């Protein structure tokens, strides 16, 4: 089964919730994942952030849903790492 292990998203979000609350809210929905957020640009009402989520199984639809509920929107998926587990062993 293909699993996302790392994803980098470019996200536009309002100033509130701030970076700490935003990251905490996402992290609460994704147990076992490590979330990193970097603010890259600030506007009058919005800010652009780069969000990195890493873990054994990163659920992208869930991240997307949480970001939307917090008023943010995903602009682009900048990096993805997936893992398909160990190769199947051929039976002899």
């Amino acid at each position, binding site marked *: 089964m293909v699993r996302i292990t790392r994803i980098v998203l470019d996200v536009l979000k*309002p100033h509130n*919730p701030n970076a700490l609350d935003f990251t905490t809210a996402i992290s609460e929905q994704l147990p076992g994942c490590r979330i990193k957020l970097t603010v890259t640009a600030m*506007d009058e009402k919005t800010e652009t952030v780069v969000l990195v989520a890493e873990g054994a199984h990163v659920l992208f639809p869930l991240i997307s849903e949480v970001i939307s509920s917090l*008023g943010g929107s995903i602009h682009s998926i900048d990096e993805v790492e997936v893992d398909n587990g160990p190769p199947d062993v051929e039976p002899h």
Partner: protein
Amino acid sequence: MEQLLWLLNITRSHVIARRYFVVNGFDGALTMLGLLVGFYVSENVRLPVVTNACLGVAIALGMSGVSSAYISEAAEKQRELRELERAMVSDLGQSAYGQAARLLPMVIAFVNGMAPLIISLIILLPLWLAPSVELFNHFPLESAFAMALLTIFLLGVYLGHISQTFWLWAGLQTLVIAAATTGLIFILSPG
């Protein structure tokens, strides 16, 4: 409840609710003080008349607070949401901001209406308890007046806590306003 507090926090509406509580609470307390002093200088006014008039004013202040705050805050929150939607170039109706725009005007209106009503009812307590408490029975208007001063002082202390200034100084400042109001009523009353 937790969700509501979170919405208040992300939209910074807790500051608005706090301001409404103090402003309208102070309004209620000072209105009751004015009414009580007005009845005191009128002399020979029966206690039920005082109680009913003050209660009527307290309820009117509450209703006025709820309706005025709801109308103005609903318009403000909708405007904020539209501005943010323009900046985000997306529909935020289902987001926390959309929820906040629908829910928070009601919360703020409730705070704005309940603050003067509850504070007024606290000030009127000595009038209601007059038949059963001897001190209040002998000096009902004076007791309610003292309660009004205490409430106004405590609102000042709360303001001092918010502005992180010395609590006694902040409380005394609001007491000066109460004293000035009382003095003006005494000076201007024709009786």
